[in-house]
């Protein structure tokens, strides 16, 4: 089969099983768009900004586990995509981003719409390629997919000069089934002796903790994790990125950990004697200050990326390998009718955890006539039966969603954890809805974040992706305001959103349904109505309590056992102390 470079790109993507391509045309990719026009198998989604393309592909990848694919033009097309690429990089999401480039002969001449895309993206990709030879195009694309999806996944950029895609130059094309790279062979199998040592240590624990992250989801190891946790009967906490791998409603799950995690999970981290970290990377939002992190614990760390091990927290038993493979091996070792666990110690440990839990650290106060943002998320949970795909933007609403929408399945909670990219939620929701058109998809956002990629409302209409936007509108950049309240003596510097658009009218202008909710008693009906409108994108503009804060919180420089509690929770704790209970 003789094909041009453009036709090779399209044919390759089809052969690779790609169904959706998120992109935006421009001069350097005109040949590719022409080839795209001449086929129907590969659906192209025309976004309204290249950042939207990368986030949509990213959301698609997080929800499906398949790589997300983007096509953007040279210069500004590539630079607009950078935020989305960096977002995927920080959260290890497989993306393949094809960027057009000026013709080979013009590279380096400061040509129109020229930017060194390989240079610009170098610091935020797993790898990138500049295709210099048409004969290597298919092989390079295969390498890009292989690198993006294997080992610790990540985004890969393939920069393709316009002359490589010229329609009149055709070469034989065969789909490269496999590709080998001598310099890239991720290790998948954990070392059997390390695995045995880890299991022995786990079984000897008196106060064990299981701490898991996004790696479990990435590795499709939720079932293995569930088996592992249930066999041991130990408490488990999950990071923001790991939510859903283990069911959020299971009693063994003691809540998210870290800066806005539960009191009980952070206290348990502080007091545990054996910690097993699975597919998690000891991010600073998890550890707080590392010098006081898990001071009594011996640490087992399973990660596919050797560089993640002992990077910020020293691992006593490091295990480099794919989480799924390592957990399966551990489950075999744990497959005994009776495990040699110190049952009385474990019972005492659980009792302690339960006393921490009884303080209900997420408790919030209802105020007459004001919608609490937490209540809005709880309502969302009720109305969707806890079964929706939830994307979020970044800020207070993101934390409320993570705290008040327990996820029972992996890949349901889709947010920018590492980079913290405002504007992520709406395009990501679009990507998810394209992958799962029959599922409820909601984007929990705020009036700050939503405006960073609001143009994608237009894409939602064009491609019929009826997502629900849950806008927790407090007229403040809430998380920044919260920090200014706590740490800058309420000097609210540039966090007040004045002159906000009328989001209801805005939604209507984009051809969607807008509903404003101002009274707590209307919340339930509005939420029900939004989800009842199956075929419509609905923008729920919920006016929330302006100065609600996210609690509990570990302030910077503090340890896990030094959480700041909400005024309500401080009262609960004081009452418990007065009754002589452990706190």
């Amino acid at each position, binding site marked *: 089969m003789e094909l041009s470079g453009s036709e090779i790109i399209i044919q390759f993507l089809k052969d690779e099983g790609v169904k959706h391509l998120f992109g935006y045309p421009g001069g350097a990719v005109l040949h590719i768009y022409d080839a795209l026009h001449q086929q129907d198998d590969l659906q192209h989604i025309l976004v309204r900004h290249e950042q939207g393309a990368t986030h949509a592909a990213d959301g698609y990848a997080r929800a499906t586990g398949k790589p997300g694919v983007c096509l953007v033009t040279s210069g500004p097309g590539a630079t607009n995509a950078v935020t989305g690429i960096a977002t995927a990089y920080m959260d290890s999401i497989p993306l393949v981003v094809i960027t057009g480039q000026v013709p080979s002969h013009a590279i380096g001449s400061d040509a129109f719409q020229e930017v060194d895309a390989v240079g610009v993206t*170098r610091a935020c990709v797993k*790898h*990138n390629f500049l295709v210099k030879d048409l004969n290597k195009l298919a092989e390079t694309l295969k390498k890009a997919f292989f690198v993006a999806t294997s080992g610790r996944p990540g985004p890969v950029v393939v920069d393709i000069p316009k002359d490589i895609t010229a329609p009149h130059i055709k070469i034989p094309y065969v789909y490269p089934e496999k590709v080998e790279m001598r*310099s890239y062979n991720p290790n998948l199998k954990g070392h059997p002796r390390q695995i045995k040592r880890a299991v022995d240590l786990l079984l000897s624990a008196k106060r064990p903790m299981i701490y898991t992250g996004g790696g479990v989801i990435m590795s499709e190891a939720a079932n293995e994790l569930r088996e592992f946790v249930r066999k041991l009967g130990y408490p488990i906490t999950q990071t923001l990125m790991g939510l859903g791998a283990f069911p959020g409603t299971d009693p063994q799950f003691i809540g998210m950990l870290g800066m806005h995690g539960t009191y009980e999970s952070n206290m348990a981290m502080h007091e545990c004697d054996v910690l097993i970290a699975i597919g998690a990377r000891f991010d600073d939002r998890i550890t707080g200050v590392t010098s006081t992190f898990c001071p009594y614990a011996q640490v087992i760390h399973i990660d596919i*990326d050797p*560089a993640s091990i*002992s990077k910020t927290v020293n691992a006593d038993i490091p295990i480099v390998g794919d989480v799924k493979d390592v957990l399966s091996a551990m489950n075999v070792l744990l497959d005994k009718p009776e495990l040699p666990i110190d049952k009385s110690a474990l019972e005492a440990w659980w009792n302690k955890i339960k006393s921490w839990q009884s303080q209900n650290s997420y408790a919030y106060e209802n105020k007459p006539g004001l919608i609490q943002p937490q209540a809005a998320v709880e309502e969302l949970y009720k109305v969707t039966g806890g079964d929706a795909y939830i994307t979020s933007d970044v800020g207070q609403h993101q934390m409320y969603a993570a705290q008040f929408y327990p996820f029972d399945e992996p890949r349901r909670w889709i947010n920018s954890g590492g980079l913290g990219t405002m504007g992520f939620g709406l395009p990501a929701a679009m990507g998810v809805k394209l992958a799962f058109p029959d599922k409820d998809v909601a984007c929990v956002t705020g009036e700050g974040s939503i405006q960073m990629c609001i143009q994608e409302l237009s894409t939602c209409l064009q491609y019929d992706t009826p997502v629900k936007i849950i806008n927790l509108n407090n007229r403040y950049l809430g998380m920044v305001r919260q920090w200014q309240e706590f740490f800058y003596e309420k000097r609210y510097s540039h966090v007040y959103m004045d002159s906000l658009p009328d989001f209801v009218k805005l939604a209507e202008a984009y051809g969607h349904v807008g509903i404003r909710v101002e009274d707590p008693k209307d919340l339930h009906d509005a939420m029900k109505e939004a989800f009842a409108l199956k075929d419509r994108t609905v923008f729920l503009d919920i006016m929330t309590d302006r100065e609600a804060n996210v609690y509990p919180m570990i302030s910077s420089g503090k340890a896990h056992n030094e959480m700041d509690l909400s005024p309500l929770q401080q009262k609960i704790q004081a009452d418990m102390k007065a009754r002589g209970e452990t706190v």
Partner: protein
Amino acid sequence: MRHIISLLVENESGALSRISGLFSARGYNIESLTVATTEDPTLSRMTIVTSGSDRIIEQINKQLNKLVDVVKLQDFTEGNFIEREMMFVKVKAQGEAQRSEVKRLSDIFRARIIDVTDTTFCIELTGSGDKLDAYINSLHETNVIEVVRSGSMGILRGEKALTL
């Protein structure tokens, strides 16, 4: 502590910037970096001299290994290896006394004079970094016109080798 890390990398454009970019992005020290193709034109050999705490050095090694262009890597520091650096020095050499003094010093250091004018010598010297420093220190500061150093290269002693 000072470490000398030797790498085999794909001889591709961009490999060098990936490696130097890693050092700048993560704030690692880089004392010197040398690179050239090997007998296999698809491979480049690189020697990096760096320093840092044990934890930083471990991260440097792991992060380098993680780069897709890096084929193989070895931290020579714990093993037995040979390290050499090359230097050109252009010095003032005016009048009999000064010319013979520079010549005498060069003989002591086994340096070679590779270019001569009426007023200057250009000298080539190979050795450890310390030896090169010592040679420069022995010359009078005001006489040194120009110094060009290659940065260190390393190779393992004995039969062991860093090959594919």
